[in-house]
């Protein structure tokens, strides 16, 4: 099943990861069965990914994050949103982020 991210949905980092900003990159280690696997499962975010990660607070929708980043990088919001949806889908697939359900 292909996981897709929704622009109107809110996402937050999963509790089963360790994320550290080290030497200008965000390094994310998913914890699976009590093991943080740097050998097969390590995930690293570049500068744009890092900016996205910092805005991923479990309150803003992906569309809101895209608008903020479009202003920051002076780029077309549609393009930023497309990139963010792609990245969020990848992070969802790896269970690095979860969708926050609104009640």
């Amino acid at each position: 099943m292909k996981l897709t991210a929704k622009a109107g949905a809110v996402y937050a980092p999963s509790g089963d990861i360790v994320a550290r900003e080290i030497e200008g990159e965000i390094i994310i280690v998913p914890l699976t069965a009590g093991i943080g696997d740097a050998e097969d499962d390590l995930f690293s975010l570049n500068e744009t990914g890092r900016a996205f990660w910092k805005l991923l607070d479990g309150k803003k929708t992906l569309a809101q994050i895209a608008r903020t980043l479009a202003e920051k990088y002076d780029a077309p919001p549609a393009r930023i949103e497309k990139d963010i949806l792609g990245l969020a889908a990848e992070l969802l697939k790896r269970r690095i982020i979860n969708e926050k359900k609104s009640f």
Partner: protein
Amino acid sequence: MKKNPSEAEPGEDRDEGFSLSAPVIMELIEAVHEKGASFRFKAKGYSMTPAIRSNDVITVSPLNDMMPRRGDVLAFRHPERPQMLVHRVLHAMARKYFIKGDNCPEADGWIPAENILGLITKVERQGKARFWPNRSAPSFGSNYYLLFYPLWPPVRRVLVKAWRRLRQASKPGK
């Protein structure tokens, strides 16, 4: 993030893939241990050959309340260099450990407890788990293995010398 691998030693081979520097690995180990989880990564270097070979995948677990003891293999911060090493405890005293690589001529010396990052609990080579004595399941075999491994480098040197002499002696015309 393609950096020198952990446990870097001069002249060793470098992996072409995604590898992390020793300071990054140390930080990640501590972060993962804070969550009570173990950390799995690729070892580099030959200081623990044959127990751990370069490119073996090792798992370092938090010590929690466990006290390291003779024979345990620990990951630790070098007290003087920004380096992480994975070597064996030869003696344990009150909150300090005399540590040496199985394949190193010299010991690392007494390492204080605060430099210890964790205990090696699993070693995988070419995708297969190696026999590794585990504190959670001690056995006579594991104790024997622990005692034997620090002796392996000098024993191997003697065997290699003997083998070479034997080959020299058996060469035709000698």
